[in-house]
């Protein structure tokens, strides 16, 4: 439980807020490259962008360079508003921000002064052929969206399948693969071992979160996920792919998830992955078709027999329901965190520390602000391993090394 005052401090991200200032010290996903329209009749392409409480436009100039400019907006505009090209009016002399495109996502820096370096994470250094990017709208504050991503226990419940699918049907989906070097689908491991032991370590980029599931036969399932400061996570998806996902504030009560799916093996089948996701979203806002207004297609009969939520097999919908159901900003004055929430507690401490450092003029102390060191950050390790040895750490590193050394691009760490 925290005070209302502290909840406000760590959730609100508008231009003059303390947590907003922290977000502004980092490159933020502003749009998918896929979203940028073609130039029309010599006019430069413009795309409305709603980011960190600001109403902006992404522009590609004649030379191909990207930037964000401020646009005029009515006070009652919907949060993910997408005006037509003809209705976009730039604010003369309004703030503009630098933009860099990386493997399908246009990242913007709203912080003023020198922008930080990009870390050399797998999603950025893999070739374009091995990364697929997508996004989706969640109608809630960014922090509850992030917190579900650093909560390794929830997958044993929220995403529980009462029956397992055939893992070979699972291309491009989360939790459908077999657990590393066994015949057990991950869904079965999660279901049968719901009380993970959770270890959290601070790193140069955020947090390394290790969930240990001690299984029968002296086996241990080791799942390593990461928090990348301030609003991203990096988690395994299948043996072939990892997910790097940002929870980017639109305003205080809405956010986008932006995901880069990165393959260590084959080029990503982008047509399949895009089609899987376009089927579940409506453009141009990328609002999910299953949502609060239609009860997420909740089916009590399915909840009894097939899934834990009764909301279908797409785990994104489960997460969306969980975080949107808390209300626009989770009321943390009523929460009761347990031992399973260790990473959430640790993350909030990091965020409060960053807020304090910015307020006392020590911006350089925030994670990943040193250009030289940040450009050399690789990884992070995110994978599933099962081991019979007590040295689960070595087993986790070895499983990761195996996949990295076989990768067709330079994935060494």
């Amino acid at each position, binding site marked *: 439980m925290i005070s209302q005052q502290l909840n406000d401090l760590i959730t609100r991200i508008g231009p003059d807020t303390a947590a907003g200032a922290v977000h502004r010290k980092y490159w933020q996903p502003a749009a998918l490259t896929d979203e940028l329209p073609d130039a029309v009749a010599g006019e430069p392409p413009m795309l409305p962008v709603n980011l960190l409480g600001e109403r902006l436009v992404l522009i590609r100039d004649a030379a191909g360079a990207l930037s964000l400019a401020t646009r005029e907006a009515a006070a009652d505009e919907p949060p993910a508003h997408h005006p037509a090209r003809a209705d976009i009016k730039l604010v003369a002399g309004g703030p503009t921000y630098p933009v860099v495109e990386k493997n399908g996502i246009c990242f913007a820096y709203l912080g003023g002064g020198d922008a930080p370096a990009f870390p050399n994470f797998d999603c950025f250094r893999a070739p374009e052929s091995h990364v697929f990017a997508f996004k989706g709208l969640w109608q809630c504050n960014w922090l*509850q969206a992030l917190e579900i991503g650093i909560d390794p226990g929830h997958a044993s*419940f929220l995403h529980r399948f009462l029956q397992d699918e055939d893992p070979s049907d699972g291309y491009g989906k989360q939790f459908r693969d077999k657990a590393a070097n066994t015949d057990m689908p991950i869904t079965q491991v999660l279901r049968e071992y719901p*009380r993970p032991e959770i270890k959290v370590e601070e790193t140069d980029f955020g947090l390394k979160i290790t969930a240990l599931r001690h299984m029968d036969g002296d086996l241990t399932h080791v799942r390593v996920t990461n928090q990348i400061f301030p609003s991203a996570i990096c988690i395994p998806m299948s043996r072939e792919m990892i997910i790097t996902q940002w929870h980017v504030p639109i305003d205080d009560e809405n956010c986008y998830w932006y995901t880069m799916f990165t393959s260590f093996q084959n080029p990503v089948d982008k047509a399949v992955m895009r089609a899987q996701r376009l089927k579940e979203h409506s453009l141009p806002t990328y609002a999910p078709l299953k949502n609060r207004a239609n009860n997420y297609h909740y089916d009590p009969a399915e909840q009894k027999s097939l899934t834990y*939520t009764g909301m279908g097999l797409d785990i994104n919908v489960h997460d969306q329901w*969980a975080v949107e159901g808390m*209300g626009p900003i989770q009321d943390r004055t009523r929460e009761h965190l*347990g031992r399973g929430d260790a990473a959430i507690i640790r993350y909030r401490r990091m965020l409060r520390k960053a807020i304090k450092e910015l307020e006392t003029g020590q911006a350089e102390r925030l994670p990943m602000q040193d250009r030289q060191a940040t450009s050399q950050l690789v990884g992070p390790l995110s994978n599933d391993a099962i081991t019979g040895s007590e040295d689960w750490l070595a087993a986790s590193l070895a499983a990761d090394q195996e996949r990295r050394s076989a990768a067709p691009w330079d994935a060494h760490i």
Partner: protein
Amino acid sequence: MTHSPQPVTITSSWVRIASVEALQGERPVIPVTAFGQALVLFRDEEGELGLIGRYCPHRGADLCYGRHENNGLRCPFHGWHFDRSGQCTEQPAEPEDSKMYKMIRLPSFTVVERDGAIYAQDAGALPAAT
């Protein structure tokens, strides 16, 4: 907490919150707003009614979508289970030796059925809001 053993006269301190019919479907769980709070009304496997806080005291998930099982409601997010008095009875993601669940209780209200309607009373003797 629900059926009073004594005959109850519905007076003005009772608030009509639903018709009995509203709980007659396959899954007798519905959202209710009363006493200025978001609540969930359900019938458990003993046939008794519970009227408890709607948002899970763990991290706030919406119990109206809870799993109707084990004579209560189970939150789909991390499996915390609540009985009709609002008492948490299980925290299946917490370590085996954790007794934290004993300390967790949602607000709850006395409920009666009369003439096809369900009434609730703000009993004054409420458990501390969590």
